[in-house]
């Protein structure tokens, strides 16, 4: 049971991360590749506050999430105007700068050593020591966040974001403040990522810069594209698929030094195939290439 509880807990965390990115890429249409860096910021801020400054886990997670949102806001303001390839370049740069900064500033962040002994959450004084406890906790939080996202997506705000993605020029002609809405969706996605990151740090109880490399970003891209960018259930579907796939691959009789790179090869191959044949994802709408 412990084992399965751990898997479900990890699924919740990734579902949050992927849904956050879905908001940015799927709904907002922004190919932003610094998403794992957002996760990292949330994780590190929360970890540092709880381990080094004695904050409670609740404050740590909250402040971590807010810090990520703030950072996204600052970074978003100039970047939302960029074209695709410029956006990729800029966000790639930003994500890497954040990672390198975390890696180099050992006195502040622990550098390559990472941060150890991050406490488990203890709501109402009860420490969530076992995996089953964490699973229940994370399921509750994830469901709550997903409900919020559902509501947001199905409001006029959500629809206007989608209209921006489809045709930016038309949307702004209709009087919608394109720029502002893009910033809003970016910050929203980043907040969710920051939350996921902070919770991740408190679940695994250890964090180091290797969690925010570009390889991880590809997984996020894959998850959103595979499930269906711009759909609500897409990321949730891919989380189950991908985490399940990963755990299942463990049981294949393949030596580990082959399995490691093989996993990424399979992920990348699936992403390429999806992009060629069904870019709207498995749960997405029918894609008409001629339209755009």
């Amino acid at each position, binding site marked *: 049971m412990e084992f399965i509880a751990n898997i479900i807990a990890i699924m919740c965390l990734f579902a949050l991360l992927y849904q956050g990115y879905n908001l940015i890429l799927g709904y907002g249409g922004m*190919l932003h*590749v610094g998403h794992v860096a957002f996760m990292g910021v949330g994780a590190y801020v929360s970890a540092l506050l709880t381990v080094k400054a004695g904050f409670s886990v609740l404050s740590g997670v909250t402040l971590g999430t807010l810090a990520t949102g703030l950072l996204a806001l600052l970074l978003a303001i100039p970047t939302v105007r960029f074209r695709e390839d410029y956006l990729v370049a800029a966000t790639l*740069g930003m994500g890497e*700068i954040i990672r*390198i900064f975390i890696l180099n500033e050992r006195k502040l962040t622990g550098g390559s050593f990472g941060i150890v002994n991050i406490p488990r959450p203890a709501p109402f004084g009860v420490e969530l020591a076992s995996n089953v406890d964490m699973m229940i906790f994370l399921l509750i939080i994830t469901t709550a966040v997903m409900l919020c996202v559902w509501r947001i997506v199905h409001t006029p705000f959500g629809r206007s974001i989608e209209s921006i993605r489809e045709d930016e020029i038309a949307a702004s002609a209709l009087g919608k403040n394109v720029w502002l809405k893009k910033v809003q969706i970016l910050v929203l996605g980043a907040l969710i990522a920051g939350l996921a990151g902070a919770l991740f740090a408190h679940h695994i109880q250890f964090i180091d810069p290797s969690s925010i490399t570009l*390889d991880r970003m590809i997984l996020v*891209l894959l998850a959103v594209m595979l499930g269906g960018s711009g759909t609500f259930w897409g990321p949730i579907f891919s989380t189950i698929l991908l985490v399940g796939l990963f755990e299942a691959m463990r049981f294949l009789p393949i030596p580990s030094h082959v399995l490691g790179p093989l996993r990424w090869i399979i992920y990348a191959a699936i992403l390429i195939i999806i992009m*060629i044949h069904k870019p709207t994802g498995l749960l997405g709408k029918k894609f008409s290439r001629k339209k755009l």
Partner: protein
Amino acid sequence: MATAKAGAGGAFYLLYKLASAQNQQSRILSLAARSARGLAEFTTSILICYNPQEMQLELFLKFVLNGFIQGSLYALLALGLSLLYGVLRFANLAHGEYALMGSFAFYTFYVLLGWPLLPSLAAGFGILFIVTLLIERLTFTPVRDAPPLIPLVISIALGIFLKNLLLLIFEPRSRLITANSSILQITDFISITSAQINIAVVAILLMIALTLFLKRTKLGKAIRAVADDREAAAILGIPIKRIVTITFLISAFLAGTAGILAAFDQNLHPNAGTAFTVKAFAAVILGGIGSIPGAVAGGYILGFAENILISIPFWGWYIPSNYKDALAYIILILVLYIRPNGIFGKSAEEIARK
């Protein structure tokens, strides 16, 4: 020293004014003027970095030399990326991995199988070309007309795919091509290895060759035509598909050469591709997307910036060496904010026209 600096600064300033004044006249002159202006700005910025009280001239020159060698490498990488961008209108984010494929293929023949140099090069490039063709046929041709988001994501995924393929085949270890190197000692402090000389010489030769190719040969002009205006080129009967394939191959060739040259001087590791890609990208954006001389300029500026800024003290404080890569990213972001068209880039209207 101060007077010398003032004198040099003054001379360059005059040159600058002259160059700007000549702007409207013949093309050769304006190109020369632009180059002179660029050179003036560039040399001045390097000179400003040098503070004789904090460092000996010899040391400084060594850093300049390092910058030149590294810059040549980056310029070569940027060239391949820029060419492909011009023709296909998309950024190949797996460019670094092409460079690595070239160097690993070469490594297999030269080191693992022990073949002599030229056959190893031929075989290495052969494999690189075959793989490039396969990739182009399987992954890019189907999405030729898709919105730019799709090929971009595909190239990101391709980068990861190729990198892990290399990790699978070659294991995640750094490798040396050879433990021997011939060293040329110039002064007490400054030495240069044969590998480094190779980098500079080959890079510059290739740049010149490429420029001549693009300007003088029929194929080169066809490539430029497709890059400039694809529809017009198609109407004129230029076989677009073939040109695209050829451009892919040239880009891969340039990347592979850069990879092999770097492998002799530095080390060979499957994870090095990402850094190559990002630096090439930074150089291209710095120099201006769509501009060949821009890519070269961007490459050199990046090379010099990395090596000089990291190595000189700013009133006693050094930028820590482990921020060297971050520097490339910071330059990239600054350029995107301040001058997104880069140095030689086309103006906004020209890009919008496409």
